[in-house]
């Protein structure tokens, strides 16, 4: 027991590890924020494409389906290797000269867009067909119906599952360490090698946890707030 505490939680070790891991964790936060913003937009676009009506849009839909199927089934770590190590090896202009963080963000975005597309799609399909019918009967176009009637209802319904995927994304930023990004996990590794202590990993775990908890509470709050507003009498 004493050994365990010493290896993982020694006060001196934690005190030294926390600033070092924090240095790396800022990279995790950066990757997470950029990837989440991109995923929110791209996934919505792919979800809309997947739901397009008509025979002429079939090729677009097929591409969207192939994309989601492929990247939902591929491990993130593999995608990270391919982009982070493979693209630089191609020695192409621009494509091969990006920072490792950029390749990390690219990997996260591509994989999580595939997940979140399905979340959006479930939300879109959960809106009753009579809503679409009512909107179209007023002369609104397909796009206007989507924009003003279907999506606002769909998106508000998918906030909780969306949050769930984003918590997954936040944690998975640690995977990007495998291509050499100096993130929290990398710093924790350096620390444990230097000091023979796992306090660095504990510090990293601590950072990841305290990041997700307020995130979860904030989203709960958003959902409640909106419900309250809709039910309350607005004057």
């Amino acid at each position: 027991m004493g050994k365990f505490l010493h290896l993982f939680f020694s006060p001196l070790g934690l005190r030294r590890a926390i600033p070092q891991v924090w240095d790396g964790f800022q990279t995790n936060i950066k990757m997470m924020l950029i990837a989440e913003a991109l995923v929110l937009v791209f996934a919505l676009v792919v979800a809309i494409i997947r739901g397009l009506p008509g025979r002429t849009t079939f090729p677009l839909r097929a591409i969207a389906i192939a994309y989601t199927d492929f990247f939902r089934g591929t491990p993130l770590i593999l995608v990270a290797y391919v982009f982070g190590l493979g693209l630089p090896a191609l020695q192409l202009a621009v494509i091969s000269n990006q920072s490792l963080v950029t390749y990390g963000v690219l990997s996260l975005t591509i994989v999580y867009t595939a997940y979140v597309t399905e979340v959006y799609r479930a939300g879109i399909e959960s809106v009753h067909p009579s809503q679409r019918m009512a909107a179209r009967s007023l002369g609104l176009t397909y796009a206007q119906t989507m924009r003003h009637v279907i999506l606002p209802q769909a998106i508000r319904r998918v906030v909780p599952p969306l949050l769930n995927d984003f918590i997954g994304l936040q944690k998975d930023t640690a995977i990007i360490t495998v291509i050499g990004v100096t993130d929290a996990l990398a710093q924790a590794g350096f620390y444990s090698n230097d000091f023979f202590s796992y306090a660095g990993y504990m510090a990293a775990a601590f950072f990841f946890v305290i990041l997700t908890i307020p995130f979860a509470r904030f989203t709960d709050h958003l959902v409640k707030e909106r419900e309250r507003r809709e039910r309350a009498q607005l004057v």
Partner: protein
Amino acid sequence: MSVADKGFVRLEGVTKRFDDLVVLRNVDLSVDLHQVVCLIGASGSGKSTLLRCINLLEPVDEGRIVVDGQTITNGAVDVNAIRRKIGIVFQAFNLFPHMTVMQNITLAPRKTRGLSKKEAEAGARELLARIGLEDKSNEYPDRLSGGQQQRVAIARALAMDPRLMLLDEITSALDPQLVAEVLNLVRGLTEVGMTMIIATHEMSFAREIADKVCFLDQGVILEEGPAQQIFTEPREQRTREFLARIIEAGRL
């Protein structure tokens, strides 16, 4: 009445199938401008489908529909432009739950008729006054009673200045004490000469306001005529049976 007003809405040999099921069979119907036509008949007789075909919410399989001199079923028309001229109100209201009453009413005028927010809201306020719900403009639909929601749905359709209104059993989902407020609103529309096709189970209402009543049975208009004749001396056996059941249920 001018020639153009005669047959303002015309259905000619309209047939509609859902897979193998024939929902409308070779239906002919003519509705003049300012006329009120009521469709009666059992559930599943094709009343709702007929209304949805006129609003192009359902494509017809055979025959054609002419509205205001324009054939709308040949696939070459601007569907959205047609729908803007034809208001439809549904049994289940179908208000947009994430929008206030005001937003529900002004959405389509703003997006499809290019009205500014101010213009659209001025029009909406007039309509809300007409339906007696001025004080509810900032409420969300789930704060309203069924009758109030249905009145808002009617106002939403009227905000497009339609030339034709289709009412699809608009009181069937309402508590009995809320039916009157909605029917009064429809009565008001007949007074301003709105052309309407109304699918309804409210027989006494149909009898009161309809210029013509059509009895639908298994996708066919089996009998049509002035309300007085249909309700007092129906020619067809099936019409008599249907009305007898209605009287039994105490609804006429």
